[in-house]
């Protein structure tokens, strides 16, 4: 069930109606659990089992880990959980990749194994892994309620493509009322509308040009291919952040705050900065459960570079079973290592904690270098094969100038839209940044401010570390009405007719 389908609209309406009618919080949580199971089973009922079995194993393992005082026993239960989760992921996602490579390496005849990749397996595997590891580290208590734990694992807004929510963020919110309110609906629905706009008006429109050009790059001129790469950079951003926005917005309407996943990544002025802004829940996961356990930057420069490279190679492989993704990870790992080397303190060799003040020209140069690098890396991410990637690189290097020049006007209409969106985002960020805190907070519209007082954790609008900045329309009011009408009409009139599946569904 895709978020931008009529089926999902009907499904969500039924869920919200059910939440409205249910009298207790426990019943509402149960309804969300059933709805999440239906949401996943709608795609392929059999794979609901795949979601249930590791959930049960993790549920039991985490309780055993918590209850056990023996370090060896705790480690055994953790290992059992890791092997189960990673084993399933490896089987469903990497079996054919492994067999193909073995066949190529040893010249074996290995038949293709017909395995259908369960949708969202990479996301929910990481989610459950983080839970068990956090319990093992005694950072969170084990969840003793099976159906609450099941609800955490299956929670439908973020089940298939993130944001990757950690139990430490989600489980404490279980105390919320979950009864739909106008305030939450108005904030959440605007975030949903923003996501739908990103997906249908930008990402799907750009896919119209990107897909044929990447499918047949030999036909096109360097200008066309370069514009297709820029278009893809915007497509993948709007597609994935649009999905995240819809997930966050729907969840906000239901009553849970999900973590932000993107923070204007194309404003990054270095690759380190980029990974703090792009797919933040994945990069945070990789940092906390892979990079830091590997040693992080605590054991000298060379080991830091090695750790960065390993983390990014595995991050690349997480995206898909293909050497293109691995190479994409390698490019980012190398660039991050270079970035660390460049920003080290020349005397001590350690990484500078405070950035040197820089002039606007230098910032522009660094921004351009980062964006161009990210775009070149996207070529490997998007292309079907390594050969296609190399052909595209030849074209954009003007080593091969042949081909049809195609000017795609929606790309040049989208760019100002994205620029305006980022300007609004920067203004909002500067206005609502909390001094002395890394958190950004969700500013409530004036009609909702009264909800804060005395309501404790009942409302999703309560500012918290995980709530993001949303530029909300000034509703109700003349300008809010005018902007909302223009926005809705623009989405209806100009969005793509053929909606493509979300790009990150394949991961």
């Amino acid at each position: 069930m895709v978020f931008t389908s009529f089926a999902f609209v009907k499904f969500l309406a039924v869920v919200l109606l059910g939440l409205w009618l249910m009298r207790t919080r426990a019943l509402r949580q149960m309804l969300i659990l059933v709805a999440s199971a239906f949401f996943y089973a709608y795609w392929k009922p059999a794979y609901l089992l795949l979601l249930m079995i590791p959930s049960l194993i993790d549920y039991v393992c985490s309780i055993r880990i918590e209850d056990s005082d023996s370090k060896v026993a705790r480690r055994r239960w953790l290992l059992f959980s890791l092997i189960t989760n990673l084993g399933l992921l490896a089987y469903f996602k990497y079996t054919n990749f492994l067999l193909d490579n073995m066949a190529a390496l040893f010249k074996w005849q290995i038949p293709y194994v017909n395995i259908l990749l369960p949708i969202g397996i990479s996301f929910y595997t990481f989610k459950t892994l983080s839970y068990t590891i956090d319990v093992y580290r005694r950072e969170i208590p084990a969840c003793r309620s099976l159906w609450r734990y099941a609800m955490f694992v299956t929670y439908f807004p973020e089940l298939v493509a993130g944001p990757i929510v950690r139990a430490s963020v989600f489980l404490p919110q279980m105390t919320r009322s979950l009864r739909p309110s106008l305030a939450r609906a108005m904030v959440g629905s605007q975030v949903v509308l923003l996501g739908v706009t990103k997906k249908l008006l930008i990402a799907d429109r750009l896919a119209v040009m990107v897909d044929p050009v990447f499918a047949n790059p030999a036909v096109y001129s360097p200008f066309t291919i370069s514009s297709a790469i820029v278009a893809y950079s915007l497509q993948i951003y709007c597609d994935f952040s649009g999905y995240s926005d819809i997930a966050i917005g729907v969840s906000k309407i239901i009553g849970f705050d999900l973590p932000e996943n993107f923070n204007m990544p194309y404003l990054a002025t270095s690759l380190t900065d980029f990974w703090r802004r792009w797919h933040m829940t994945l990069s945070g996961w990789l940092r906390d459960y892979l990079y830091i356990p590997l040693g992080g930057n605590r054991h000298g420069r060379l080991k830091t570079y090695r750790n960065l490279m390993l983390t990014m190679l595995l991050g690349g492989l997480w995206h898909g079973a293909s050497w293109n993704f691995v190479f994409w990870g390698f490019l980012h790992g190398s660039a991050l290592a270079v970035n660390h080397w460049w920003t080290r303190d020349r005397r001590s060799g350690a990484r500078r904690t405070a950035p040197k003040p820089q002039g606007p020209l230098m910032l522009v140069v660094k921004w351009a270098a980062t964006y161009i690098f990210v775009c070149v890396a996207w070529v490997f991410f998007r292309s079907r094969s390594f050969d296609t990637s190399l052909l595209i690189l030849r074209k954009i290097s003007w080593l091969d100038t042949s081909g049809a020049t195609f000017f795609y006007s929606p790309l040049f209409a989208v760019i100002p839209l994205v620029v305006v969106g980022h300007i609004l985002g920067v203004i909002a960020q500067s206005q609502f940044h909390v001094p002395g805190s890394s958190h950004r907070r969700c500013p409530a519209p004036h009609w909702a401010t009264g909800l804060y007082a005395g309501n404790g954790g009942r409302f999703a609008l309560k500012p918290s570390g995980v709530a993001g900045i949303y530029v909300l329309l000034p509703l109700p009011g003349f300008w809010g009405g005018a902007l909302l009408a223009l926005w809705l009409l623009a989405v209806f009139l100009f969005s793509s007719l053929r909606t493509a599946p979300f790009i990150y569904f394949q991961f």
Partner: protein
Amino acid sequence: MNSSPPGIPSRRLDKPPQARLWILTIIGALVAAVLLNFVLGFFIAGWNYPKTPIRTIRQLTEGTTTSHFLADGFGTYGNRLTGNPPAPNAPIVILLGDSHLVQDAVPDSDTMGAVIERQSRADGKPVNIRQYGWYSTAAPTYIANAPLLLKSFDPKLVVVVLNSTDFAREALTEGWYWQMRINPDLTFRLVDVRTPEGTGRLAQVRDFVGRSPLMLSLRRRAVLIFLAGDEAPLPPRPAADHAPDPIQAQVPLVIPASVRGLKTAYGARLLIAYTPFCRQTCDPAPDEGEARLLDACRTEAVNCISTRADMVAEMQSTHHLLRGFHNTAPGEGHLNRFGLQAVGTAIWRRISSELP
């Protein structure tokens, strides 16, 4: 009391009454709709209003263009004007086709007819083109209109432009205006499926909608969304429903029946021009439908050409895509000005030899 938590800017507390704010919201939405209606007027104009002899169509689905038609009862909108002044005493050549002859995605001067007229004048053999396109049609519509077309204009030549969509169900059950039912001996019966003009209240509503570019856009968009939903794969028919499909049996007969019908309708004045779907690349070898069409033409002794060679040459020499526009997928959609130039040139080269 300021109830904002620390870090959140305080808001003004002397709030206007909620009812007034919601009324202002509705007024704001209406003002926005009026504004958008005004802006869209530069890009959208419907065919049903104003009802003048020269119809101006503006669209932004395939490029952003304005096109003009003389409403004379043929074609979806009428005779697509070429922007060229008519040559006195020059013979008339009629071009017929589906939406590829409506050509509302290119300006008048880039249409197939305009290309042919310019080349004919440059070669000293001027002709006047009348070009008629009907959306979603095939040979039955061209056959049904033949008597009146010949009587009205007495053309020197009639060029029917076909493509592979004309060779399947569009001629039988899916085409608009006219369809055909074919017997095994290639005789056929024309079926009139034209929608009668709306009358009374319905016509008033259509006229009202046609006056507003915004309403027209919303209506068109709703239709497109409905059609896109309609393209979803149908569920498999139940086993009991697997009886032979009588229409499917007629599909292989569409090409020979169309050629025979067109020959009967237009006689020696007929030329059939086949335009292949050259998208991102163009295969120099003829497709199956094209080969069967040329075979049928030989059998019926009808003048036929394929514009494939000219289109391939154009793509190879200039690297131009012949289909698609600046806001569509590259190579998809109707023929663009390069495609129409290539097809028009190929047709003119063939018909110029038939003219004195």
